């Protein structure tokens, strides 16, 4: 059914820390690796070794430069996957009921057996979180690794989405946002977690933690007193040379 649930029992999603993400793309690769051989159709590539390679990815990492009014520009790596919105526009536009949001945990999924590949859900998503697989002709999207997070055949530490499990800088966190004491809820509270494109009214579940303020270039180091130049004015032969060169 393509109606959205009025409420979900749990609100599973991700917190993405823009402060610690180093843009290594490990989450992109682990996501593709897990999801191409597990739940649903594989994530195909077209012309992967040719001159015009492209393929289906459920997670992509952009990089942005932010230039403040004063001071140096900052480079921010920006991973982007499905945000499992509470008011998901991709669900209600679906003509077949293939696109749905689960009542039990809020995960937005595609039932690939019902998908006709019309592409309207991808048009309705402001984040570019859905991609039509060119080989399979059905819509692919982040499943929040539903085949990992409940999978009792995996060791407990692996029961998180592949992107979270693999992140070497701990920039991705998985948890239940309906529980105010969960790690993700606490992170959002403490670090001022934000929505992206809030004006689109999608009420995304995934939250982004803004980069922490940088050290200012004008700030002096705590080591500064020990690092003062030994001799400001050259003396002796160098002093004579300095003055002599000035006069020429």
């Amino acid at each position, binding site marked *: *059914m*393509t*109606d959205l649930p009025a409420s979900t029992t749990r609100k599973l999603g991700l917190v993405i820390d823009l402060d610690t993400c180093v843009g290594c793309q490990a989450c992109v690769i682990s996501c593709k690796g897990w999801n191409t051989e597990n739940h649903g159709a594989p994530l195909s590539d077209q012309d992967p070794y040719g001159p*015009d390679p*492209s*393929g*289906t*990815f459920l997670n*992509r*990492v*952009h*990089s*942005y*430069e*932010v*230039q*403040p*009014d004063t001071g140096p*520009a*900052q*480079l*921010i790596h920006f991973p*982007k996957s499905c945000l499992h919105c509470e008011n998901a*526009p991709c669900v*209600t*536009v*679906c*003509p*077949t*009921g*293939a696109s749905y949001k689960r009542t039990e945990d809020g995960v937005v999924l595609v039932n690939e057996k*019902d*998908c*006709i*590949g*019309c*592409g309207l859900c*991808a*048009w*309705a*998503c*402001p*984040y570019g979180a859905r*991609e*039509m*697989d*060119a080989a*399979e*002709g059905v*819509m692919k999207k982040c499943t929040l690794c539903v085949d990992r997070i409940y999978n009792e055949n995996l060791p407990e530490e692996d029961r998180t989405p592949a992107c979270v499990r693999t992140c070497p800088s701990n920039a991705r966190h998985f948890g239940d946002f309906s529980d105010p004491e969960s790690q993700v809820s606490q992170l959002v509270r403490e670090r001022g977690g*934000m*929505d*992206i*494109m*809030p*004006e*689109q*009214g999608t009420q995304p579940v995934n939250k982004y933690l*803004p*980069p922490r303020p940088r050290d200012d270039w004008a700030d002096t180091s705590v080591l500064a007193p020990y690092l003062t130049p030994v001799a400001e004015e050259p003396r002796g032969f160098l002093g004579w040379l300095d003055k002599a060169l000035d006069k020429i």
Partner: protein
Amino acid sequence: MHPAPSIIAFTTFSGLGFGLLFWLGIDATPPTGWVAFVFFFIGFAMAVGGLAASAKHLGRPERALKAFTQWRSSWLSREACCAVAALVTMGLYAAGLVFAGYDLVPLGWLGAALSLLTVLTTSMIYAQLKTVPRWHSVWTPPLFLSLSLAGGALLSGRVTVAMSLMLIAGALQVWWWYRGDKALGQSGTTLGTATGLGGRGTVRAFEPPHTGSNYLLREMVYVVARRHALKLRIIALVFMVVVPVALLLAPFHHITALLAVLSHVAGVLTARWLFFAEAEHVVGLYYGKR
């Protein structure tokens, strides 16, 4: 947005076909026998041909029947249901006129209403999308409806009605373009809100996620041919409104009427190409393409 030929053909010809079926349905003195057959055949060929073209762009056309199930929530599903209901109703009405020479007035009116409803649901598929500010407007349904009614009147040989409706549709089209050019700016969505980093300074896309292209860029970030947009708008308006109205003002002849129809169709196809090619999807912001 990517201007897929199948979608352009679908919206143009199904709009014209359902427009023609509308005028046939409310006709107080409808044609009968062979004349009725020809008129209804043209209407059905266009409406069904358009729908068939739209099925071509599906990734899994063999499952198309599933699209009739979600009419409670999805405009695309509503469109599919309305289209079939309109075609069945008008088919029965046409059968009465063609084979029995009998005018089932209530059936004609019902079919006409369903035909217009189909065009409305088509326009709502686009108007509902908040992600494409140029389409997300109360003016998108009037634009589609007026073009459908004007084209239908032209095809059914209603000269005066067609002329006034084409002028109305032309005016709506100009207003729609004028409004649409400001829509993305007025939507408030920028790379700053897309990344949540706008408050910290000027955000610039530094590096895309991949060196190659992808589905999102191909489907939603179509930027070619924008530089010819103004010329194409003038061409569309001239063929869609100016030429057919001028031809209809001349003494009536079947050749001039045919030329007026052909010119109008060419104009609507051009305008519909622009409808897609000029539409900016907000996802383009993430790629620094706006």
